[in-house]
């Protein structure tokens, strides 16, 4: 009985409201601050108990002669600017030098906080708090300076000719990277906070004169509705914002590249920058956008078009090739000419497994090798690749576990799935081929067609931020096809893709036509 009662009690205490109260001791976070420095410092210490990295420095404020204190978290703040631009000025500048009523600190951003919630958030974000005796407000000085990675090339979205800067883990830097590319005041940023326990700043970026206002309102509504402890990663946010979370296909693009983000914003899409995460979200997107890379626009158009066609072909191969092979070998062998089936039969004679098991063994081995390669440090990963390659390529065939042709099929499938530029889509496609292999082994070519119909049906009914996912294929927007399967010369793309519903249709030749048309 007591166990159950305790369990129920725990369940009851699971809510966030109570967890909040439990953390801060007796301090009421919404109460106004006291005017006494001692009481405020005591409250601050009570909020940050067991926090040895909280530094509180009390000193006389020279301008007014009152006592003041500066509080900051050691690792999150920039000590140089605290020492030189705050402490030094506050302790040295006297009444004659400074202007009365104005803080004599040489720091760009100074906010005033009036409640403990604001104070807590500010300190945890690396700001320094300046508490002055007798004042009912506290100044939060922008002294952020946490350990940060240098801006480097993107690892998962490598590009040959695009920019070699990728996002880092600070939203200020990421926003700056996008702003550098889109230097116009039309680029607007809407800030929101997500997370009850650990607040995280989320910024929605868009072009005010391009982006359909509905997208922005839908996105901010969805973000505002989120009721979660904490978001550590863009992927988490994407999963909670998706229209159909049970679908295999990704419905939002996450990218590490500022140039990709900028080009999407320019088309009228919105971009969501999440603090502490090195990738940003793009929405709304359609299926074909996952097959476009930023290099498409920096190479010449015939080459870019060829690459695109290659990617779509690779997508088809990666999804269907193992299934088609299984169907042809085990079910619809009448499709294969006699000579060919005899030679395939020769290879297959030594193999004890049915084609489906054979394919499954190979596919799973390959997936394991790939995963092993990701986890291991680069030099070891190479060894794994070589060992795996030999095991798959030679030994397995000689040992009679799999047939020669199966190796060819699995290898081409693997190569095909590497071509797809977006990691999320490539992963979805990798997973998709297993059900298709099962259906192919049960129903042959009809099973594959049935799976294909399911795919089509999903493709047309999925939505991304309320917009149709299959656009511009179904619903058909033939004018957008200049930039779908092919990449026609840039000067033919006078208008923005109509599938994004941007407010200004024209992106070229606007000066000839007397300004942008609506």
């Amino acid at each position, binding site marked *: 009985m007591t166990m159950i009662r305790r369990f129920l009690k725990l369940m009851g205490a699971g809510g966030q409201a109570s967890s909040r109260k439990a953390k801060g001791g007796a301090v009421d976070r919404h109460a106004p601050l006291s005017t006494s420095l001692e009481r405020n410092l005591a409250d601050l210490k009570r909020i940050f108990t067991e926090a040895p990295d909280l530094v509180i420095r009390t000193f006389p404020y020279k301008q007014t002669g009152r006592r003041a204190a500066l509080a900051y978290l050691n690792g999150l703040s920039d000590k140089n600017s605290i020492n030189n631009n705050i402490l030094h000025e506050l302790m040295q500048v006297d009444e004659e030098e400074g202007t009365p009523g104005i803080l004599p600190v040489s720091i760009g951003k100074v906010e005033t906080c009036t409640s403990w919630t604001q104070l807590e958030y500010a300190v945890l974000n690396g700001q320094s708090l300046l508490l002055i005796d007798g004042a009912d407000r506290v100044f939060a000085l922008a002294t952020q300076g946490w350990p940060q990675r240098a801006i480097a090339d993107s690892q998962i979205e490598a590009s040959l000719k695009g920019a070699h800067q990728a996002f880092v883990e600070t939203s200020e830097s990421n926003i700056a990277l996008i702003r550098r590319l889109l230097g116009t005041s039309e680029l607007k940023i809407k800030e929101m906070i997500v997370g009850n326990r650990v607040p995280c700043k989320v910024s929605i970026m868009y072009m005010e004169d391009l982006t359909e206002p509905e997208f922005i309102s839908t996105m901010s509504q969805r973000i505002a509705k989120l009721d979660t402890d904490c978001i550590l990663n863009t992927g988490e946010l994407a999963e909670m914002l998706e229209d159909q979370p049970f679908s295999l296909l990704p419905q939002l693009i996450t990218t590490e590249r500022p140039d990709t983000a900028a080009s999407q914003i320019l088309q009228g899409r919105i971009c969501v920058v999440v603090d502490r995460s090195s990738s940003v979200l793009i929405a709304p997107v359609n299926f074909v956008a996952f097959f476009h890379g930023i290099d498409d626009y920096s190479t010449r158009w015939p080459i870019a078009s060829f690459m695109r066609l290659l990617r779509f072909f690779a997508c088809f191969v990666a999804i269907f090739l193992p299934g088609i092979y299984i169907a042809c070998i085990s079910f619809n062998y*009448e*499709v294969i*000419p006699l000579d060919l089936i005899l030679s395939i039969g020769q290879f297959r004679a030594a193999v004890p497994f049915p084609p489906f098991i054979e394919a499954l063994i190979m596919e799973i081995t390959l997936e394991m090798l790939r995963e092993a390669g990701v986890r291991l440090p680069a030099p070891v990963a190479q060894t794994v690749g070589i060992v795996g390659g030999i095991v798959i390529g030679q030994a397995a065939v000689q040992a009679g576990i799999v047939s020669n042709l199966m190796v060819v099929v699995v290898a081409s499938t693997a190569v095909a799935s590497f071509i797809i530029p977006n990691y999320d889509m490539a992963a979805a496609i990798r997973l998709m081929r297993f059900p298709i292999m099962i259906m192919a082994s049960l*129903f*042959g*070519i*009809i099973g594959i067609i049935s799976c294909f119909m399911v795919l089509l049906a999903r493709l047309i009914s999925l939505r991304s931020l309320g917009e149709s996912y299959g656009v511009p294929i*179904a*619903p*058909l927007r033939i004018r957008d096809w200049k930039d779908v399967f092919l990449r026609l010369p840039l000067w033919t793309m006078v208008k923005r893709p109509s599938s994004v519903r941007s407010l200004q249709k024209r992106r070229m030749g606007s000066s000839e036509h007397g300004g942008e048309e609506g």
Partner: protein
Amino acid sequence: MSIDRWNPASKQNSITTLQFILTIHSMQLGVAALSMPGDLARISGTDGWIALFFGWMFSSAASLIIVQIMKAYPSGTIIELMAHFFGKWTGKLTALLFGVYMSIFAYLILDRMALLIQSWIMQQSKTYILMLLFFVPAYTIVIGGVRAIGRYCEIVVLLSLWMLGAMLFLLKEGNWLHLLPVLKEGWMPVIRTINTTIISFLGFESVFFLYPHLDNKKNASWGVLAANTYTLLIYLFLTLICFLVYSPDQISEYNEALLTVVKIIEFRFMERFDIIMLACYLLVISKTWVPALYFGAFSVKRLLIVGKPKRYAWLFLAVMFAITYVWDPDWNESQNAMKWFSRLGLAVAYVMPVLLWGVLSILLRFKRWQT
């Protein structure tokens, strides 16, 4: 948050003119195309293709009349229209009629599709198992409403264009002399064939349900014309290819002349191209019965009012499965049922619109009804 995807009046469910055209066309082109060249040849020899033009004329006329009828009440389907002009119970009766008609339409074609698979590819599988394979996509599309159907038709038409191209390979086997002399036995055999061709254009009665969804209603008239014409062109193309390749006597020996003719195409790496073609043609057939299934379920939902669309979609699929499980029609039974159904089709798609149009145009002359 969730939108009623089955509400014809909602702007969220509107379809473009192209989707309108292709959905009508999709419902017309289905299993009939496979056997049509043989059927035509059996009645009127190689002149059968001329009769297609008559079929096209009749179907275009009937679909234009349907558009005229629907103009009287543009925001609702035929069920709301009947309820509006003739009272609630007539509306219910119409819902019942179309519910039955469309459900039989969907069932017969789905069953025929399963039979085709069974006789050409998977002889040892049960029909109901084969039907089951297509339930998941059908369910996904049906609950998406007309918009999903329009998009599905769009994408499938795009994806099946290559098949027409592949048929062009057959032209080099063709002999144009097979068509000569034109009208060798006069007009009579051609006129006797019209009945068959009229039936093969069935499916345009979907305008009764599609019209309220069309976003630009001005395009409805030329839209139905375009749909009928596109169907005619494809029928003509397929029939002529069969007539050119086969001799006039040989062609009447085959049940599915269109599939047998594809057998001729062969590559060094691929035999039996007809199996690939049939498998891909299943997509084309699926876009015939999936809309019909939706219209059937929609009508029954209008009749019963209660319940969610999802439940109706499941219920319909389950009933179809159960019928096949119990009855399991063989090829001949399916053929007979189709023949019987085509008479119903003639009544619903040709006779009813004409009568209804007559009644409505008289009614609308009186002020009282002009609302």
